[in-house]
Each structure stands twice: as C-alpha cells, then as structure tokens.
C-alpha cells in the first residue's frame, strides 16, 4: 500500500501523483507498478502505470493521462487526493528498462503519456553522469499536452512532433517515416519506444525499414486504462 503525498496537474487531462511507499525496494528507470482499485461491491480493476521516478527513493512519481471511458485513470486523475491510500504492486518489469551501465547511445521515442518511463530514463541518465548520448523524440498533440513540460524545456536534446497544433515554425501532423529518420540517432543506437499501440507499431516498423536492428528496439504499448 502507498499513501498519496501530493498530486499536481501536468496537462489538461493528466496529473502527476507522488506516492509514499515506506517499504519500497527501489526501482530501475522504465519499470512500472500495477495499481488495483476495489469498488465497495468488491469489483476490482488493475492497470499498469509507468514510474517517472527511479532509484532508492520511497516517494514514487506516477503521471497518468485520463481516458474518458477508462476504469481506473479517471479516478486517479480526478478523485485521488493527498492522504488517500492506494494499493499497488511493484516495481515490475525488467525488460523495458535503462541503467547507467549501458554505454550505447540511446534514442527515446514517446507518443503522448508514453513519455513517462522515458523521463525516468532521462532523469536516471542525468543523475548518473552517464556520457552515453541520449535524446528524446516526443510526439504529442499540442504543447499544452506535454507531460513534464517545464523540466523538458530545460533540455536541448529533445525533438517535438506536434500532431494537432504547435508553434508557427513547427511541422504539424502525425509522425512519418521521413520525419522519424531525420530526428533519431543513427543505426546502432539502443531505442526505447513507448506509446499507444498504433504509434509503437508504426514507429518500430519504420525503424527496422531504416536499418535499425530489431534486437536493439525495445517497445512498450499501452491501451485503455
């Protein structure tokens, strides 16, 4: 069980949630937790949420986007308050993770709230003093829909791909293979892709078309939550 320490708005539909878990064993950047909600009638729903935090800290950060017809995310975004208890299990997943011992260049590619585990990797990368190049390509609807906007604003190794609207000098529209090719690190880099299933499938297949080794591409998809 965790106790909500605080929450704050990230985007018009997304919130950050800080949770204190006293017996937390620490986690690697990219891992997730399963959050289980139990209704008064006993009905239970479990969903996975990536951690934006990593390392030994027992204060975890989740960032959740509300899906209007979701079972769990509307509660987490609209109703959860500081002091509430939350049933969670983790840290989970040992595959979609980055640790500072990796010396390869790393290309991160996010679709929407898929940026959450990738921000954990960016933070872990900065905290470790790793010299491996790491950059992010972030596909998001509009500038207002960016998670961690203030934090990412300070970094210069980020390319935004706005799909609905953006600054006057930006190309607006869904990512294409050509735009992907122009924005990512060369073949031989480790690549992490996280986003909705359709986004991840498209990006992963374009990367292979562009000559990237499928074994260096790690993907994580999310759906209804």
């Amino acid at each position, binding site marked *: 069980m965790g106790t909500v320490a605080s929450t704050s708005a990230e985007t018009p539909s997304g919130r950050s949630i800080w949770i204190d878990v006293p017996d937390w064993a620490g986690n690697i950047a990219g891992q*997730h937790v*399963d959050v289980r909600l139990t209704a008064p009638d006993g009905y239970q729903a*479990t969903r*996975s949420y990536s951690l934006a935090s990593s390392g030994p800290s027992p204060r975890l950060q989740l960032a959740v986007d509300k899906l209007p017809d979701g079972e769990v995310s509307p509660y987490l975004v609209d109703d959860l308050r500081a002091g509430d208890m939350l049933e969670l*299990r*983790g840290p*989970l*997943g*040992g*595959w*979609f993770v980055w640790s500072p011992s990796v010396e390869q260049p790393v290309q991160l590619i996010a679709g929407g709230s898929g940026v959450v585990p990738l921000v954990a990797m960016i933070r872990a990368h900065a905290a470790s003093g790793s010299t491996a190049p790491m950059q992010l390509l972030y596909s998001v609807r509009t500038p207002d829909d960016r998670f961690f906007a203030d934090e990412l604003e300070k970094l210069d190794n980020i390319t935004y791909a706005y799909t609905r609207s953006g600054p006057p000098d930006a190309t607006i529209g869904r990512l294409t293979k050509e735009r992907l090719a122009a924005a990512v690190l060369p073949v031989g880099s480790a690549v992490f892709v996280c986003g909705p*299933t*359709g986004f991840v499938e498209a990006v992963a297949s374009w990367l292979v078309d562009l000559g990237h080794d499928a074994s260096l591409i*790690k*993907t*994580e*998809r*999310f*759906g*209804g939550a």
Partner: protein
Amino acid sequence: MHLDGNVLAGPLLELFREDMTTATARCASCGDVSVLATAMVYDAAPGWCVRCHVCGDVLLTFVRAGDRLRIDLRGVTALELPAG
C-alpha cells in the same frame, strides 16, 4: 487492440515469483524464441491471451478465477530465464 508482454510482469509474478518478462519463450507453432515482453497480449478479462509476435499463434492464456490463478501453456515448448 493488443498490448505487449510488459503488462504481464505483475500477473506472472504471482505464479512464478520471478520477473517473467525477461524470460524467453519458444513458440510451439513457429519455433521463434523471444522474451515474453515482446509477445502480443490481448485482454481476455478476467485474464490475458498471449500470442507469438511472429506468427500470432497462442503462446499461453492466463486467467484469474476467484481466488485461483490458472495458466495454460499450450503454445510454449520451452521457457528460459536468467538464473538468479
């Protein structure tokens, strides 16, 4: 729309007491050997149906029924995981 094997980390931990997303599974249908994290996972509440990302055949199904967990490994001929 499917998810992927990363989402199985929690459910499979209950059965195997290990992170199984980094375990490799050999597909009984096409022989592909891949980590479970890359498998295609379909919601089949109250469980999951897990399919080979190469040929699409069922690797395993996972069901929670009341206080029981059941895994059917019909499409997996070998599981291998890093020794602890």
